């Protein structure tokens, strides 16, 4: 059964890719959705079975064996991976369903579903791998599918550029990850999780070796999960169709970095220096992306920066060792961010492709279902009490508080900014007067059921998702279902709630709730009452201008990496390769002909000269032989 979970999306990819062109779109879409939904059902049964057994492994074949470097192609389903599988296939199936409606008039409909299925295959491979190398297969594979899907509308060169940027930035991380894998193999003599973790206890490791290895793994995670400094690809990745942004760039692929670190928690636990770096990277990313998000006007860009920021928050949680909280937030984030992206997709769909929130407004009554689901999503992400985001964010904040109150304060600021930009987006889109063209106004329509159904499902999950891991404060130990469940199967999971007094916890929760509710009030004042519209970018001044221009990080990378590389390439080719090296080779080659230019003058065609030469030669020989006594003859 386990291999089938992987195989079905792969078969779906082959089927849609080869035959989809000749079939009705509805059929192709349904089959592709089924190829993800059936694995969801299979994962559910596995999920049930895992109550009894801790883990299941299946070895398909030996992929590669050279000397002691032995890589079996084997799959592992334990409590951690099955949870990821459920998220991937569950949300994946919903997004497939949504895409049938969203992509219905695209000429390359079948290819879109083929790529989506391929993505699900690689993502499942990533989480189901039993060793780091098979994980790496999935890791690179999802990057590849992301490249295909970002550049799906490949007629537009800008989109192609965004796709390439994503792939190449991911590759930078991948190289780090690959080196990390080599290092792990060197340290442990294996890449299989269970073997590494079991050897960890008995081995004496060289000082710092594990730090370097885990740092290299983290470099991989930075690339995939869009952390500073490798985050700039994610906002650009919004060039892809919106369902892609929802599935790949919000719910699943970008969380692979979190998964990797949680999976390797045993290693990271022993590398406090790495943990420190993860903490600060996560926090910095979270704040930085949130600030940029405040001044973006493209609905998808705002959500993209929000994703970067939330991922930063998860890394912050990882850095302080709250793996369970990170996984919890990963889950709820997958729910509400997928919901928000799909909702944004519904808006864009209705607006005929318009993505600028300054040209929207007043959509509340025109798109009621989208509006109400969007409300849930927004409230969930800003941490409105009792919605899913509230609980998961609260857990992270509590864990961070336990670590350091300064970090906690900064994280709280980050989530306050999150609340601001999300509400700004929300009010500008759905409230006020409609600011689009008349044509758009006439065209406005609620999306079909096929698209709103996933929205509603995700809205329910976003609202109620917190129930899987209620704070100990509310429901006692038994309420911490997700944490308990992990603790039963995976080590290194512990929730922070147990270590804080109830009063402190109430306080923290109160602060977070206050921030969320205050943000609603302030944003309502600014954007609805005063109907304050964001100004054009050129009119902005000071830090606003910097934020709107994403702090010129892209330009910076362009100036310090891309352009020097291109200049260097031209210089290497023109000067070094052509002139210096090839010039030297040609000079050596030309040397004989240079010499012969003079030597050939001897052959002047004058017979008397030749004869004279001959006689001279003979006389020379005679002299040498008889006068000098050299033994020539």
């Amino acid at each position: 059964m386990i291999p089938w979970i992987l195989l079905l999306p792969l078969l779906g990819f082959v089927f849609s890719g080869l035959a989809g062109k000749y079939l009705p779109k509805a059929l192709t879409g349904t089959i592709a959705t089924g190829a993800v939904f059936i694995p969801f059902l299979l994962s559910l049964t596995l999920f049930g079975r895992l109550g009894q057994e801790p883990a299941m492994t299946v070895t398909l074949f030996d992929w590669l064996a050279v000397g002691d470097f032995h890589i079996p192609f084997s799959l592992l389903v334990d409590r951690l991976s099955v949870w990821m599988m459920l998220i991937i296939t569950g949300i994946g199936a919903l997004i497939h369903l949504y895409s049938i409606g969203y992509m219905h008039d695209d000429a390359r409909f079948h290819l879109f579903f083929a790529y989506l299925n391929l993505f699900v295959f690689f993502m499942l491979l990533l989480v189901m791998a039993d060793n780091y190398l098979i994980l790496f297969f999935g890791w690179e594979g999802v990057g590849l599918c992301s490249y295909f899907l970002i550049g799906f509308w490949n007629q537009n060169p800008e989109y192609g550029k965004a796709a390439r940027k994503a792939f190449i930035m991911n590759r930078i991380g991948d190289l780090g990850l690959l080196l990390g894998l080599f290092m792990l193999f060197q340290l442990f003599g294996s890449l299989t999780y269970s073997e590494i973790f079991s050897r960890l206890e008995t081995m004496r490791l060289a000082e710092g070796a594990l730090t370097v290895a885990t740092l290299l793994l983290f470099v991989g995670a930075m690339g995939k999960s869009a952390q500073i400094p490798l985050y700039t690809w994610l906002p650009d990745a919004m060039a892809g169709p919106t369902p892609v942004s929802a599935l790949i760039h919000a719910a699943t692929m970008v969380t692979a970095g979190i998964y990797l670190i949680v999976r390797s928690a045993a290693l990271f636990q022993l590398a406090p220096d790495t943990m420190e770096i993860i903490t600060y990277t996560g926090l910095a990313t979270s704040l930085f992306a949130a600030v940029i998000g405040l001044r973006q006007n493209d609905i998808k860009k705002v959500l993209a920066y929000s994703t970067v920021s939330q991922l930063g928050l998860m890394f912050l949680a990882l850095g302080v060792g709250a793996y369970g909280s990170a996984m919890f937030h990963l889950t709820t984030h997958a729910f509400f961010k997928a919901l928000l992206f799909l909702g944004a997709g519904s808006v864009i769909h209705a607006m005929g492709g318009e993505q600028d929130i300054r040209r929207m407004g007043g959509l509340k009554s025109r798109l009621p279902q989208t509006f109400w689901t969007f409300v849930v999503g927004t409230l969930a992400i800003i941490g409105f009490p009792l919605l899913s985001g509230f609980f998961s964010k609260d857990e992270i904040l509590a864990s961070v508080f336990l670590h350091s109150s300064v970090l906690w304060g900064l994280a709280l600021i980050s989530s306050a900014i999150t609340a601001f930009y999300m509400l700004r987006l929300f009010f500008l889109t759905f409230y006020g007067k409609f600011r689009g063209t008349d044509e758009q106004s006439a065209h406005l329509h609620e999306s079909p059921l096929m698209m709103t159904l996933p929205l509603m499902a995700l809205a329910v999950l976003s609202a109620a998702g917190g129930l899987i891991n209620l704070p100990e404060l509310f429901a006692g130990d038994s309420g911490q279902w997700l944490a308990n469940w992990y603790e039963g199967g995976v080590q290194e999971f512990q929730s922070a709630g147990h270590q804080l007094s109830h009063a402190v916890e109430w306080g923290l929760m109160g602060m977070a709730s206050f921030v969320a509710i205050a943000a609603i009030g302030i944003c309502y004042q600014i954007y609805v009452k005063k109907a304050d519209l964001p100004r054009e970018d050129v009119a902005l001044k000071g830090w606003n201008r910097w934020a709107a221009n994403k702090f010129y990080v892209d330009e910076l990378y362009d100036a310090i990496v891309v352009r020097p590389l291109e200049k260097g390439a031209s210089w290497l080719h023109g000067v070094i390769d052509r002139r210096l090296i090839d010039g030297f080779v040609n000079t050596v080659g030309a040397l004989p002909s240079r010499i012969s230019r003079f030597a050939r003058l001897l052959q002047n065609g004058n017979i008397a000269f030749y004869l004279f030469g001959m006689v001279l030669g003979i006389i020379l020989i005679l002299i040498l032989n008889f006068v000098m006594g050299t033994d020539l003859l």
Partner: protein
Amino acid sequence: MSLLLIPLLGALLMLAFVRGEAARPLSLLAALANLGLTIGYLFWYNPNNPYLMLADFSWIPQAGIRFKLGVDGTGLAMLLLTNLLTPLIIGSTYSRKLPGVFYGLVLLMQAALVGVFTALDGIVFYVFWELALLPIYFICAVWGGEDRVRITLKFFIYTFIGSLFMLLGLIYLQQHAPGQTFDWADLMKADLTPGASTWVTLAFFLAFAIKMPVFPFHTWQPDTYVNAPTGGAMLLSGIMLKMGIYGVIRWMLPLSDGAAQLYPTFIALAIVGIVYASVIAIRLQDIKRIIAYASIAHVGLIAAGVFVGNETALQGAILQMLNHGINIVGLFFVSDIIENRTKSRQLNELGGIAKQAPVFAALFMIIMLGTVAVPLTNGFAGELLLLKGLYEYHIWAAATAGLTLILCAVYMLRIYQFAMFGPAKALTEGFRDVRGSELIVLGVIAALVIVLGVYPQPVLDLTKAATGLLLEMK
């Protein structure tokens, strides 16, 4: 022996069809027969009995030269490469000018390559090594592009000079070999002073480094590839430059004990070459030239692995030679298809092909992914092992060489972006999708890319025992 005779007789037979249409199918038949035979040998080969002798008789006894051909696992892998690619190359070229001569030369080339990869005698090796140069010279000089004569002459003389140093080294070894013969096993046991060992190693290095080519001996290559007819470029890059790598594995590494101090330099040169060629490839416009520099980069990685010479790297190198051959033949074929249809190879004149030729786009994508070394394509398994081998040597070697993973993605995706995506331009309007023999050849290549990526182990099993033995000699 028949591995050698089939292409030789085929080449002779071609003379009867100098201008005939029958030359292509007949030569294809000969090449396929050789492939069949090679596959037969693969089943026949028993790893426990290291050498499968193909021929062994006295040739010039006065100088201790025997006509001795035999293969071990590495040799078989190279035979597989040669005999797998030759039919693909024949299938992917179409020569209007003197087809009989063209395909005859291709078959002659095949025979010479088979000789190089099976020779177990120094002089026999040298003879085949030089013999391989003749057909490729004529292929490039007769069927090549505008500047063909000058560039082909440069290529010929450059590689020929390198080979002469190798001959010198071989003769020196023979003088100091225990039995004063040119037998491979004998030569490798030659009793050398450290100084002599250094000089012999350097002589061999020069020959092999020019052939591969290793930075900074590479400048003949881009011009030659660009000016050669596509079939010639495929033969050169797909098979011929592997002669150099194979030469290092069989003729240079077993000597290395006396010259170990040279190898760090060799490794450094190879790694510099990887980054250097990759960076140059980023800015070029001509597809063929980009592929040429890409080839320098990829071969640089293989070369670095071979010079490191540990088990992982050697096995990876042999696997990657096969993979690189398949991929580069595919890439040259793709560039040939584009050039034939649009009469241009310049990226800024192309675009939008994917929309008009989806099958071609898909197959090109698979081949490109193989080159970029995405997991589950063939390039990944080889580069993984090579990088791991380099890592065992030094972490910075692996990290620097690993830049190829990033840079290769940069330039290959750039080709794909500019040629295949975006709006169609005047030249690419009405681009016909692949069909017939084009489809078959590209399809076979794409299938090989996937199959060898998903399941590379058979090749590694083939070469395992042989590399082990070679390492023991070191």
